[in-house]
């Protein structure tokens, strides 16, 4: 008997562009991946939610500021507050910060230029549902492509974050001016993560790297465990 597939929802906002890649990658990693349209007022029965990259609502005002108020996002906030697994990639990370589910804010890159390249990332934690398949201190190669990835939080906020070990991924080299090279963080509870790099673009060696599959398959596996508990 094959193991059951967890169902992972990929939110689609107007202006998203990585939703298909995310759906494809999750399906390739043995999840039942389904799209959720941004106007939905209720989420279908899901074991995890992915907010994909892109430029929701044209990045108007601030990145993620408008998407945060999409009706489907209200359900995602409830889902997250109930302990559901939520992964935000790039624009998805920006949305989670704007929604207050993750700490900090993503500002314009220090260089003022769009960065689009493979970057080395150091795994700071493996005891999260999103990095369980990685090794502590492992360096992953995953592409970034963003103009606003310069993560920031004030000194007090950062000290709290460090004390709670909420930094999960760090750039191994300067990329966008991000405070202390933070590339990905989790919430205090550990069920919501955001990262600027795009694991869904790095799930096959043909794409230059398959390291992104470690993140997404960690998520799929964690979702599967949760699914099995509820069955």
């Amino acid at each position, binding site marked *: 008997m094959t193991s059951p597939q967890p169902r992972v929802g990929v939110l689609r906002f107007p202006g998203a562009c990585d939703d298909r890649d995310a759906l494809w990658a999750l399906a390739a990693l043995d999840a039942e991946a389904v799209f959720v349209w941004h106007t939905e007022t209720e989420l279908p029965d899901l074991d995890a939610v992915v907010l994909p990259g892109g430029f929701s609502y044209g990045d108007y005002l601030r990145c993620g500021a408008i998407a945060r108020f999409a009706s489907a996002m209200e359900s995602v906030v409830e889902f997250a507050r109930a302990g559901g697994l939520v992964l935000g990639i790039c624009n998805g990370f920006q949305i989670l910060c704007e929604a207050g589910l993750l700490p900090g804010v993503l500002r314009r890159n220090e260089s*003022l230029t769009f960065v689009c390249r493979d970057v080395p990332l150091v795994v700071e934690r493996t005891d999260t549902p999103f990095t369980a398949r990685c090794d502590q201190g492992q360096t992953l190669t995953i592409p970034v492509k963003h103009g606003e990835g310069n993560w*920031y939080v004030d000194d007090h906020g950062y000290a709290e974050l460090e004390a709670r070990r909420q930094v999960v991924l760090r750039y191994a080299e300067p990329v966008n001016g991000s405070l202390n090279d933070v590339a990905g963080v989790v919430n205090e509870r550990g069920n919501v993560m955001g990262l600027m790099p795009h694991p869904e673009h790095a799930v096959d060696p043909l794409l230059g790297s398959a390291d992104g599959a470690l993140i997404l398959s960690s998520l799929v596996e964690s979702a599967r465990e949760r699914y099995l508990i509820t069955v």
Partner: protein
Amino acid sequence: MLVRPKQGILDPQGQAVEASLRRLGFAVDGARIGRVVDLEVDAADAASAHAQVERMCEQLLANPLIESYEIELAEPPT
């Protein structure tokens, strides 16, 4: 209303503009770039208009982590 980067928050756009102004020969000492949002608000009086716009700023128009805002009320159209 006027949104601008908080004091002490890095403003790379402002820095780029400052550098360009200097290259043009202007003795500029600091440039910060914000944004203006003109709103037409239905309100009984100035105080309630101000209160409404303040709520808009808190909820959407500014990100309090990195931005401060100022509200300026114009005369209602006659």
